[in-house]
């Protein structure tokens, strides 16, 4: 279980997150929706401490961290509980697909090389890249890179995988293959928090949806509820803007 | 021997008289080098037979050897060639009448040309192919497209490297002492030779060179700002 309490974050004088509370249960697939600048990516990055929250408390499983007095050791421990899939993939450019997946296992988890290798190959096969083990990121398409990124995150067996707009940087024809992989692992009961603009995905895969705007959670609920029967005015306006069938005027 | 701070100032004042010589050598080598650079870069880009191979050989040779060897080869070699030609054609010309500074001009221009050729070539390569196509599409000729579209953009891209070349030539001009031209460096030696206060003299020289270098950098930065207005914002 993941619990965020009073998470806030400011960049200079601008407050991007205003005391966010969020609870995610084991096995949940949570999507965070919202306009750009709403703070959703910042929130996600705070969970992995890629952004340092200005205050609040993060709990993953039995590990609890107070953002006011987190030591380097705490941060390191927190990061081991989660894994991140980036919008820009961020595969290690100087390592092959296989090495990218192995890196965390060998260096962070200190697994023996052979074991790590076998596990990494299995994971790459799972995301459909069994034939690209020795390819460098620059030799892979965006969709393939992102699938390696997902395998890299899976390898660490984290309590939660954080997806930061995983398909936003992809060419439209490559979005499908990545969503398919995420869908597949969602069915396996892995806890996930996904920041996305893919409404179809949110509706079909998630079991909880959160709408953010202006640094606060405006409303949350089941995806069907949130997408089709929003309660708040701000949610309605956002959905109207991004759902094409409701808005044909160009 | 103790350090004599007051002599640094004395030396500094005396060195000022040598600044024009250094600047003239730099200016000549940079300007002539620029012309050589543009011509050889175009030969190579357009793969002009023979001339492009000659240009490549020239650039490779000059960039692979120290500037000092160019100067020495010109200083010793050029008179032999000129005197040979002169007696062959009966010109009645003697190489001894060539002023020393001319050797520095010629040799440094040759050096600068090779380095600038590379700078200009990469600047031209950096210009998007679509730019020339667009120029053709509005009916420009090749030379119009080069002059009006490609060169200005290439120049903007190469400006930092051209400025580096200029600084390199400014610093390289200190070699002129080997052909008895009195530039800042040679003057420092002369100033110090009376009282052996070499450190003080060279310190003054260093300060002058430092100042001149910073000046070139500042001017370049200002020029860059003006020239690259079209690049403001966006991804460039």
């Amino acid at each position, binding site marked *: 279980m993941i619990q965020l309490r009073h998470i806030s974050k400011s960049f200079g004088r601008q407050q991007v997150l205003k005391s966010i509370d969020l609870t995610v249960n084991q096995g949940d697939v949570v999507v965070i929706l919202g306009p750009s600048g709403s703070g959703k990516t910042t929130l996600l990055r705070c969970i992995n401490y890629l952004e340092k929250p200005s205050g609040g408390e993060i709990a993953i499983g039995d590990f609890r961290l107070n953002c006011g007095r987190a030591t380097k050791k705490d941060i390191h421990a927190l990061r081991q509980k989660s894994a991140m899939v980036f919008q820009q993939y961020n595969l290690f450019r100087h390592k092959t697909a296989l090495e990218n997946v192995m890196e965390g296992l060998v260096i962070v988890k200190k697994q023996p090389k052979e074991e790590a290798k076998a596990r990494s190959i299995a994971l790459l096969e799972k995301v459909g890249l069994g034939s690209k083990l020795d390819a460098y990121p620059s030799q892979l398409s965006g969709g393939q890179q992102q699938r390696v990124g997902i395998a890299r995150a899976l390898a660490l067996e984290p309590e939660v995988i954080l997806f930061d707009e995983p398909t936003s940087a992809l060419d439209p024809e490559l979005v499908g293959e990545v969503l398919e992989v995420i869908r597949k692992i969602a069915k396996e009961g892995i806890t996930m928090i996904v920041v996305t603009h893919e409404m179809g995905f949110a509706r079909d895969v998630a079991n909880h949806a959160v709408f953010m705007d202006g640094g606060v959670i405006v409303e949350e609920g089941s995806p069907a509820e949130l997408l089709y029967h929003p309660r708040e005015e701000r949610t309605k306006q956002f959905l109207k803007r991004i759902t094409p069938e409701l808005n044909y005027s160009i | 021997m103790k350090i004599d701070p007051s002599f640094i100032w004395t030396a500094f004042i005396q060195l000022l008289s040598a600044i024009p010589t250094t600047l003239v050598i730099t200016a000549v080598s940079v300007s002539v080098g620029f012309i050589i650079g543009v011509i050889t870069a175009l030969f190579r880009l357009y793969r002009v037979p023979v001339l492009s191979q000659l240009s490549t050989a020239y650039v490779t040779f000059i*960039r692979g050897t120290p500037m000092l060897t160019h100067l020495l*080869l010109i200083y010793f070699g050029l008179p032999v060639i000129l005197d040979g030609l002169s007696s062959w054609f009966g010109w009645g010309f003697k190489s001894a009448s060539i002023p020393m500074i001319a050797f520095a001009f010629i040799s440094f221009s040759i050096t600068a040309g090779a380095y600038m050729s590379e700078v200009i070539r990469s600047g031209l390569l950096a210009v998007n192919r679509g730019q020339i196509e667009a120029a053709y599409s509005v009916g420009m000729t090749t030379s119009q497209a080069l002059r009006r579209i490609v060169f200005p953009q290439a120049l903007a891209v190469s400006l930092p490297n051209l400025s580096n070349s200029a600084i390199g030539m400014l610093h390289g001009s200190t070699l002129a002492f080997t052909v008895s031209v009195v530039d800042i460096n040679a003057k420092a030696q002369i100033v110090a030779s009376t009282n052996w206060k070499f450190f003080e003299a060279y310190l003054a020289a*260093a300060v002058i060179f430092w100042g001149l270098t910073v000046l070139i950098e500042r001017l370049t930065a200002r020029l860059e700002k003006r020239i690259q207005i079209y690049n403001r914002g966006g991804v460039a």
Partner: protein
Amino acid sequence: MGAPFDFSFVIGAFSKLWSMLGVTLLIVGGSLLTGIVVGFLIALPRLYRIPVLEQFSKVYVSFFRGTPILIQLFLFYYGLPELLKLAHLDISRAPVLFFVIWTYGLHTGAFMSETIRASVTAVDRGQVEAAYAIGMKGAQAFTRIVLPQALAVAVPVFSNMVIALLKDTSLAFTLGVMELTGKAQTLGALTQHFIEAYLALALIYLVVSFTLEKLLRAAERRLLKHEQPNGAERRRFRIERKPSIRGMYAGIGAEKGGAKL
């Protein structure tokens, strides 16, 4: 001026000069090692923004890039003993080679620090984030992820620096070091075949810089093997160059200023 041109002297001078190559390479190697250490020391305060030291680094780099190496040679040759005398160290009897290597080392260090700084900043921020995200510590992320990639960016610039350094060492003769150039001068004066001696000298420099470039190019190719997708195939289909890692070097600006001695 001198004896008439005789090509056989070029060959003779070449083989005589070849025996002096060791001294030149010693200067290059020694200054390079010094330069790498100095370069890191100068680059770190600026990378980590350490106050005061950062300012010192800036001035250091500006001075060594802003003054001619020839002036620096004289400055250190005459000045360093005086300076160290203040610290009760007497090095006035140290061999000239010592001063030469130190000066070239400090000089190279300034350029090296700029290269290090530029290469490290050239590595995408996302790479470090990804390293943190899979649970690496700061030091692990630096040595395993940032450094190898920064190295690949730095090698071409480094290679230019080495060759510039090789050419710069031709000035060591002004302090009386018997290296390639000094030897060529002596040979020329001895035989009065100046042109031949200097031609041979130029040829040796050409051969050495050519070899160094080839070696460093091979190293670069190894380090950059991850940046060359499908080799020739891609090159053929692409007209303009994509802004690849190679393209970034132009923007690095840590390269030695254009013409070098």
